[in-house]
């Protein structure tokens, strides 16, 4: 029997679902391989049928979201978070650092009607997650490799190594060394293909923290390149600001000392 999958969206930009929708012919091949029972954007609307694998995009930020993610967890075999929003809150988790209700009042007239939690949180804060796919957005290759592994009945190998390793495998020239760019590669998870360094610019950590990230040493290096402590902090408090290692490093730098 074909494995059944579902793709569920929460608060996000939709970009990670595109890892499926941009597959081209492979999307048709995937459809042969599995039964997609829920994927609203692609037209599959059966949200309550149990699935073997649930792919979840987006962060959780309302009471309704919270209930929905629990329902999804209950009917799913493996639950996979797809992308920075689902895995670490995403860019919108920046609100967690501020007084979000004041912000809301600021941007529109009748904030009372909003059903919004104060925070945008990763899925794992509410339910158990079997596999986290980092990245903003996730990469299609990464996603397909996960699908394949799960169909083989195993989890894909963890990818926690630093971007620098991928950068060197791609034979990109280090932008920190040649241009003094404050590159986040040394604390960031690989997986994107080191696109930023290959485009001659600093990595901005959209894949989240790597294993043993040394935020102090990197931050000091950034200071050496002319960044102020709060500028260092902002590099950590960006797309994956709610990931522990980045939150911690960012707050340390924000407080002005390392």
């Amino acid at each position, binding site marked *: 029997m074909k494995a059944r999958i579902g793709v569920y969206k929460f608060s996000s930009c939709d970009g990670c679902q595109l890892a499926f929708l941009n597959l081209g012919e492979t999307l048709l091949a995937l459809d042969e391989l599995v039964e997609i029972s829920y994927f609203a954007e692609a037209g599959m609307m059966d949200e309550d049928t149990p699935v073997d694998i649930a792919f979840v995009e987006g962060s959780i930020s309302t009471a309704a979201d919270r209930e929905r993610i629990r329902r999804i967890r209950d009917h799913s075999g493996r639950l996979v978070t797809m992308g920075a929003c689902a895995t670490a809150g995403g860019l919108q988790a920046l609100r967690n650092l501020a007084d979000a209700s004041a912000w809301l009042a600021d941007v529109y007239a009748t904030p009372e009607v909003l059903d919004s939690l104060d925070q945008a949180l990763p899925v794992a804060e509410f339910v158990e997650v079997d596999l986290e796919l980092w990245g903003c957005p996730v990469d299609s290759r990464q996603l397909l490799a996960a699908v*394949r*592994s799960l169909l*083989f*009945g*195993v*989890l894909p*190998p963890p990818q926690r190594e630093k971007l620098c390793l991928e950068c060197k495998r791609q034979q990109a020239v280090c932008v920190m060394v040649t241009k003094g760019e404050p590159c986040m590669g040394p604390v960031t998870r690989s997986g994107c293909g080191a696109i930023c360094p290959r485009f001659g610019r600093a990595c901005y950590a959209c894949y989240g923290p790597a294993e043993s990230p040394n935020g102090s040493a990197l931050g000091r290096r950034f200071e050496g390149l002319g960044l102020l402590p709060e500028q260092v902090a902002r590099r950590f408090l960006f797309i994956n600001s709610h990931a522990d290692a980045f939150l911690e490093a960012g707050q340390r730098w924000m407080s002005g000392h390392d």
Partner: protein
Amino acid sequence: MTERGIPMQVEVVERVQESPTVFTLQLRLIEEAQRDAYRFDPGQFNMLYLYGVGEVPISIDGDPDRPELLQHTIREVGRVSGGLARLQPGDRLGLRGPFGRGWPMERLDGRDVLIVTGGLGCAPVLPVIARLMRQRERYRRVAILQGVKHSDDLIWRERYDEWARLPDTQVLLAADVAGPQWHGAVGLVTTLFERLDIDLANSTTMMCGPEPMMVAASRELLQRGAGEDDIWLSMERNMQCAVGHCGHCQYGEKFICRDGPVFPYREIAALFGQRGV
């Protein structure tokens, strides 16, 4: 010599569930020429390749005198081992091997033999025991010591009983935590050394299991008179290639896959038990 670079195809002939997480696979090489050529020494290992998932090093624990059947006892701990656990007779997988240096079988003649294992550590010494038992007269006293975390982890109880019935053969079991119906000792495997009935000065020890256990046990044996060249240990490190190229299994100047996995204590004494090496 069999092919090292590319796996050979093997078939699962038999699968036995030894405990909730431990299983044994009997494998047979599909190609006859490969089957005929394949020989291994006790203590060597194969790289088992689970299709589409990856390769892992697994000791060969069958009888070296019957290399046509390759037996592997595996604990389900992660990706590859978890996938291997689901294989059934008739399923195919890849195999590269055998690799490494095994136990010093040639040094055992006429000596006392001590086997100390912890956890699943007994798998790599099974072929040794098979040979000891078949040619029992070549060796003097034999002691087999096995320690487990919990008494329920012990597999192969019948085999231990069987070995215990042989002449001049001591079988001692210890569990850190004992469940009901446990007749062995309670504590670390080293607590069994008290009861050893062999002459450590004229013995050869073969040991495998978790590193802290091996460290404690070898230190104790040395104190009790065993020689640094007479304690042999099977070491474990991450292995990718098994041919000494990938660098993962380096242990000081050694490549465990190539120079080991079995080492005499003296060769690794300087590193043994050191953190982070």
